[in-house]
């Protein structure tokens, strides 16, 4: 039997089968491997807006320790981040900024809408807030609460991990027609003018 450089001495394979290998190895589909590595090194972008940002920071700090899932590396630059945790209320003035940050993130990217204000406007149903961040960016997981406690956020993150592990790896959300790009008329009550947020020409 020829000697394979990777496997080392293979002479005992014929006698002992796979148990005769010198090295341990795993078998699996490349797709699973990609998905597995994506979930184990998901870096969030710092997108703290309001109250929820404090709970997001608390989740990252010593007591709740987000690094147990390899996620403590909050990236200040959206280009290095995989996940945007929209933590807090999104105002009309902030909405274009949020969309721009999202656009600057590299695919694949995910969004967690943290707290009721980001998810639906929460208790502030008025002229100033975007009623749900899913009108601007596609949201993968909604975390309920005002603000969601660190446990809720961790649960949301684990849900997202599960989603990534069980989803497709080459899906592009723009083609799927998901969330992003929806034109929203934000009624400000008095004037006929409308703020259009969404896909730019």
């Amino acid at each position, binding site marked *: 039997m020829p000697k394979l450089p990777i496997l080392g001495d293979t002479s005992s394979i014929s006698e002992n089968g796979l148990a005769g290998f010198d090295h341990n190895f795993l078998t699996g589909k490349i797709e699973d491997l990609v998905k597995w590595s994506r979930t184990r090194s998901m870096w969030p972008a710092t997108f703290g807006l309001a109250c929820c940002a404090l709970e997001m920071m608390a989740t990252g700090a010593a007591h709740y320790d987000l690094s147990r899932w390899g996620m403590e590396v909050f990236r200040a630059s959206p280009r290095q981040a995989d996940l945007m945790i929209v933590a807090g209320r999104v105002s009309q003035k902030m909405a274009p900024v949020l969309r721009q940050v999202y656009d600057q993130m590299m695919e694949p990217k995910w969004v967690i809408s943290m707290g009721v204000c980001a998810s639906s406007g929460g208790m502030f149903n008025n002229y*100033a807030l975007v009623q749900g961040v899913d009108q601007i960016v596609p949201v993968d997981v909604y975390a309920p609460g005002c603000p969601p406690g660190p446990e809720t956020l961790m649960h949301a993150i684990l849900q997202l991990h599960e989603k990534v592990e069980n989803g497709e790896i080459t899906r592009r959300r723009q083609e799927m027609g998901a969330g992003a790009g929806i034109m929203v008329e934000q009624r400000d009550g008095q004037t006929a003018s409308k703020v259009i947020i969404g896909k730019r020409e």
Partner: protein
Amino acid sequence: MSQETERSRPEDEEVETAERVYRRGEDSAILRLSESQVQSYNPEDDRRMVINMGPQHPSTHGVLRLSLEMEGETVLRSKPIIGYLHTGMEKTGEQLSFLQGPTNVTRMDYSSPLFSELAFSLATEKLLDIEIPERATWIRMLMCELNRMSSHLLFQATNGMDIGAVGAMIYGWREREEVLRLFEKITGLRMNHNYIRPGGVAADLPDGWRDDTLQILDNLPDRLDDFDSLFTGQPIWHERLQGVGVINATECLALGITGPLLRSTGYAWDLRKDIPYLRYEEVDFDVLVGSYGDCFDRFAIRLNEIRESMRIVRQILEKMPEGDYRIQDKKVTPPPRSRIDESMEALIHHFKIFTEGFKVPAGEVYVAVESPRGELGCYMVSDGGPKPYRMHIRGPSFTNLQVLPHMLQDCLVADAVAVISTVDPIMGEVDR
């Protein structure tokens, strides 16, 4: 540096000039250009440029945006651009009844939510002309001082992180968690408590609150000493903070600055001491002042105010009276749960209070409390109905932000981070 000093007023000292904050034109520290003008602004001097910082920036404490006019690495003029967290809370406040009001205002200053609730409740009570029970007053004081501790611990965490000492964040959050755990036990929530309400507080203190509080008070001093050994005496820390972002008392007064920023200039002004509310005249504590008005003084004042708050909390533990935690005024307080099962009237009354709310006599009032950031005021106008006709919160961060351009002038862009951090603005309160 920060110990009790005698009351000093500006006339006692040599006159400091505040001329620079009155400037209007090009020589002012404020870059008075609108957002669109800034983008097309092209200075004649080639060495100058305008750079944008924020609103999504790791060290601007939330969604603060700054336009900085730079010459090399030196900041010449700057302007804070705010409104990225404008939530329309004052408009929403007009839609909510007086009982629901604290739910709304508590989300303004999210690092010290109980103070906004307190200001709102005090204003409503003043309009109603009611006197709340002793125990409720002392519970309010207890919660507020604990909240001041957690807020200043948060400052230590974020300030350290902004300047590059990530360890501070770990320690600051660890200590803050202890306080938040107590809050969760007492109010049911870690943040945004809606605990202090017109007429008293939402619930009585739970069993074991005294032991839990004592545990915090016993653990914290050692850990605060850790902060001292890690930061206060450290040469790098001195280099980064001392002599940076200096402001004097006269300028602070002209700009309407309150809280630790004002006290860092050596001007002892604390509403708890000077215009006491609740029962602050019955507890003994010191007002801490700095002497240089720089970033280091502001850091040291906040660190030591945690110790003062602990002192106050210990006294509150001794003095906490027995009694009711909310006023037994049927107009304001819903009937107890047990009465609802027995009496139809109680059920109707309960339903009415929570659907319609209680009516508050017409009038207008301004009430202020000392929040960890300065004077937090509530201006309330009632037209006799169950909802405020106008509810305005005077957030200390909003006014304090005006000092930024003056502090930033002629300092390096790297120091700008330290300056912003020690002003400690909470954007929720700035934009409301």
